[in-house]
């Protein structure tokens, strides 16, 4: 017990990094994912091809590899990121692609009649999206988004590869120094707590959206 309280501060500081990557990725990727998802549905072909290639790259290669490329690869062509910015950049790119695919699926589920009915009421495209389409899409995609959100909590541990000190790395350091698996037990418990909070929030959101069908 005494040992746990000794290593806890370093684990908590690692958790700070994990949470910071997590929140910024969610806050930026979800709206971006909606935009890219809408972009996939436009009739302007060059845009949809570009998006297709982007999504293929992001889903077709490991996130770990993307992190390495952003931090060690981009400087070759003159784009230099700080470690933390590189991590955020890679995570946002990667998660936006997944979110976009999810939103595209949700958008396809909205019947044409909803757009037509908005059109004869003379709502603009933007009003139709904001008041009618997006709320319905969000309800449809919430379970899939939830999956990605939980994944993101754990994926954030990949930032160790570019030398950032997150929760898992803090545990790793303590394990190597003290030659005991005990820190990893604590690390596991903290991840479980984080994902439990996410699960609760997601359940609340789903409950909120269950007011209508």
């Amino acid at each position: 017990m005494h040992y746990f309280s000794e290593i806890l501060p370093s684990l908590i500081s690692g958790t700070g990094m994990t949470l910071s990557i997590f929140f910024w990725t969610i806050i930026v990727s979800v709206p971006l994912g909606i935009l890219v998802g809408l972009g996939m549905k436009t009739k302007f072909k060059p845009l949809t091809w570009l998006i297709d290639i982007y999504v293929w790259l992001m889903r077709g290669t490991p996130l770990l590899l993307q992190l390495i490329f952003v931090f060690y690869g981009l400087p070759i062509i003159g784009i230099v990121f700080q470690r933390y910015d590189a991590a955020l950049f890679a995570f946002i790119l990667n998660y936006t692609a997944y979110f976009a695919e999810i939103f595209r699926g949700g958008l396809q589920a909205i019947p044409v009649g909803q757009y037509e009915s908005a059109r004869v009421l003379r709502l603009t495209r933007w009003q139709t999206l904001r008041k009618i389409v997006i709320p319905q899409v969000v309800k449809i995609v919430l379970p899939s988004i939830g999956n990605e959100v939980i994944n993101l909590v754990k994926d954030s541990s990949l930032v160790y590869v570019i030398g950032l000190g997150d929760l898992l790395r803090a545990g790793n350091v303590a394990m190597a120094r003290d030659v005991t698996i005990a820190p990893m037990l604590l690390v596991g418990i903290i991840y479980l707590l984080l994902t439990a909070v996410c699960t609760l929030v997601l359940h609340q959101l789903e409950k909120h959206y269950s007011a209508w069908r």
Partner: protein
Amino acid sequence: MLELKGITKKFGGKTILDGVNLTVEDGKILTIVGPSGAGKTTLLRCISGLEEVDSGEFVLDGQTFDPATNRDNDSVIGVVFQDYQLFPNLTVLQNVTLAPTMVLKQSAIDAKKEAKRLLDQLNLGDKADLYPYELSGGQKQRVAIVRALAMHPKLLCYDEPTSALDPDLRREVQQIIVKLRDEGITQIVVTHDIPFAEAIADQMMRVEPKD
């Protein structure tokens, strides 16, 4: 008064509407009848601006207009869809007030007052806070009618209003349409239900499938 002159609509190489002429007098009910595939719904979709016509002219109160592009003036054409297409994420009241507040820029209070009045008129006064999934088919249809009326349309169109209703509700929608006519609202009703069409029509128009 709405006049259609030589309205022609093709899909691919197939001519669906071939030079349709018709006139609807103000405050009258025009029914458009005919078998499935005759182009009734297409005609309604052209009038309401959901399809662009290949040729022909629309004249409303002496002025030419294009329903497919002319979305910004007051000559609104309201539509009650066959499957109603209420917005499932909004309550009955929100379904009705959405367009008046966002498009006609009515204040929330005015829009709500007007919506309540119309809902009461169609016996939906106690349903204002329900969501569409909580309503029966007939109630959904009445909400769709109220939603269209709240935009003060010059013309109200119905696509197959009786197709999903049992006989009692059929009589009810008949009464509603006639009542709205008595209040001076011009209406076009597309239906394959001939007895229903005959019961409400001031004018009837038959369309036949083209070969």
